[in-house]
């Protein structure tokens, strides 16, 4: 079976859930080989099916944006002739993989929500135009380089050999152009990561700036908290909470929009959620066109009641 290279993301050494999802997809194509820059918990990678783990351990990868990693990964692709290259659909995952595709004359597919394999043929599904169409595509040249969105599959454990192979690579001077002069890791919110969460509870301008009811419901559901741009622009939540065209795209099992009107730019980031629920006091808010269930009412009373009711049911 041929090798499938999987670009792993592991901030502060902790392998992200989307990375494990990629290993799961890779197993349906061939033998997964994890590619790690810097530190990562290699035990977890083996547990989720990595047969090989290529590690690039040089400070240069943390000192400059994207280009050094792209060069190193492209070299690995040239050396190993993998059946495919999978990368997370994060900002960095997309940039690294697109450059790798260009360097290796390979077709590139961004933001796949599904990857299916039939014999040697890999077909990807993408969701386009704010989720209004799905498109199936195939790569016609080179090893398919595919970025896959979070939550496309559930990560499944399956022991792999996890043989670690340190790779040394000489990064060119040209790749050292965008220097990272400072990096402040994001404080953990203690809640699930927005793009990875199974449930997202969001608040908009309708919260009036007080997210306490939204957060209480989120915690009762074990959900991540999101926000509309109006809430972010008002300074109520940092930009990392923003859902939408210029924020995060989320596709959870359940999305609960509270005090959010449902502008097209907001929809662009949540429209593909499996189940959508909204609470809004305006019965004509466009968000209601999307919902599976909606409550016309004041979030300040509806949400606390819901939170309390969930508490009761949990007992």
């Amino acid at each position, binding site marked *: 079976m041929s090798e499938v290279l999987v670009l792993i993301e592991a901030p502060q050494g902790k392998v992200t859930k989307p990375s494990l999802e990629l290993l799961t997809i890779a197993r349906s194509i061939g033998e997964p080989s994890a590619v790690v820059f810097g530190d990562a918990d290699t035990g977890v990678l083996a547990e989720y099916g990595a047969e090989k783990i290529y590690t690039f351990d040089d400070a240069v990868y943390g000192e400059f944006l994207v280009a050094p990693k792209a060069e190193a990964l492209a070299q690995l692709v040239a050396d190993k002739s993998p059946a495919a290259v999978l990368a997370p659909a994060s900002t960095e995952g997309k940039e690294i993989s697109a450059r790798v595709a260009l360097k290796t004359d390979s077709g590139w597919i961004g933001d796949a929500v599904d990857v299916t394999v039939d014999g040697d043929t890999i077909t990807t599904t993408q969701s386009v135009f704010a989720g209004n169409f799905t498109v199936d595509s*195939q790569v016609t040249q080179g090893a398919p380089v595919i970025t896959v969105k979070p939550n496309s599959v559930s990560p499944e454990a399956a022991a792999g050999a996890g043989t670690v192979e340190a790779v040394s690579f000489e990064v060119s001077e040209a790749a050292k152009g965008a220097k990272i002069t400072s990096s402040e890791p994001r404080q953990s919110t203690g809640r699930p990561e927005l793009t990875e969460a199974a449930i997202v509870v969001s608040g908009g301008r309708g919260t009036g700036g007080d997210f306490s009811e939204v957060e209480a419901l989120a915690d009762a559901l074990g959900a991540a908290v999101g926000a509309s741009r109006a809430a972010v622009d008002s300074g109520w939540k940092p930009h990392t909470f923003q859902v939408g065209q210029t924020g995060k795209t989320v596709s959870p099992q359940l999305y609960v929009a509270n005090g959010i009107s449902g502008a097209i730019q907001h929809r662009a980031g949540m429209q593909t959620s499996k189940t959508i629920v909204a609470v809004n006091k305006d019965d004509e808010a466009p968000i209601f066109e999307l919902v599976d269930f909606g409550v016309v009412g004041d979030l300040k009373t509806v949400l606390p*009641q819901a939170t309390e009711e969930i508490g009761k049911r949990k007992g």
Partner: protein
Amino acid sequence: MTNIVVAVKYVPDATADRTFNSSDNTVDRENVDGLLSELDEYAVEQALQVVEAGEGEVTVVTVGPADAADAVRKALQMGADKGVHVEDDAIHGSDAFATSLVLAKAIEKLEYDLVFFGMASTDGGLGVVPTLVAERLGLPAVTYASEVTVDGDTVKIRRDGDAATQEIEGSGKLVVSVTDQTGEARYPSFKGIMAAKKKPVEEWSLSDLGIEASQVGGDAAWTKVESFEPRPPRTAGEIVTDEGDGGSKLVEFLASKKFV
């Protein structure tokens, strides 16, 4: 002296229905009104601010059909100095990779210190054109800037990433893409609209750039669309009005779906 090239895209209006041409599986740009991509206005704005604070010229470049001239005109109205419109029938159906080739060749013909991009096209772009153009030009790229400062030869940006907030520095020729966090883009003034009529716009074809027709368009793509399908319409949801029991009804629904 800082000369900045800004890549701007003409996109179908996001508030209109967008679709595919069933004949060749390309995005339908005929039946929908278009405009300068809203996210590229932020790039034009940042370029204007840099040039206004010092000296230099802003040149906007677009790759697209005849109507794409509208995007160039809007940027000129905002204050850009000149425009370049690359138009060629063969470009129709190009993916991000082919588009990046055309843009890179066009930018190479221009005098520039910096190249600015929007963070992503509003018509489903994946935000990779800037990094691909940088790769082709052999330049560093600092993407998704939420703040840009140009100080002589050095460009500093702040980037609010998923895992961290980073400060990034580059010098010399550089590709930068900016987010909507950089600050409101200006509206064209009446004076700007009048002045734009006299600003030069060059029309270039592929042969002006030394690109073969076979290097672009749908046939040059290394991927092919097998099929596309409209999402099944959402079945109308249930909407209740809160009469003191809205929260409980909400939880009943969640429980019926096994979320509680």
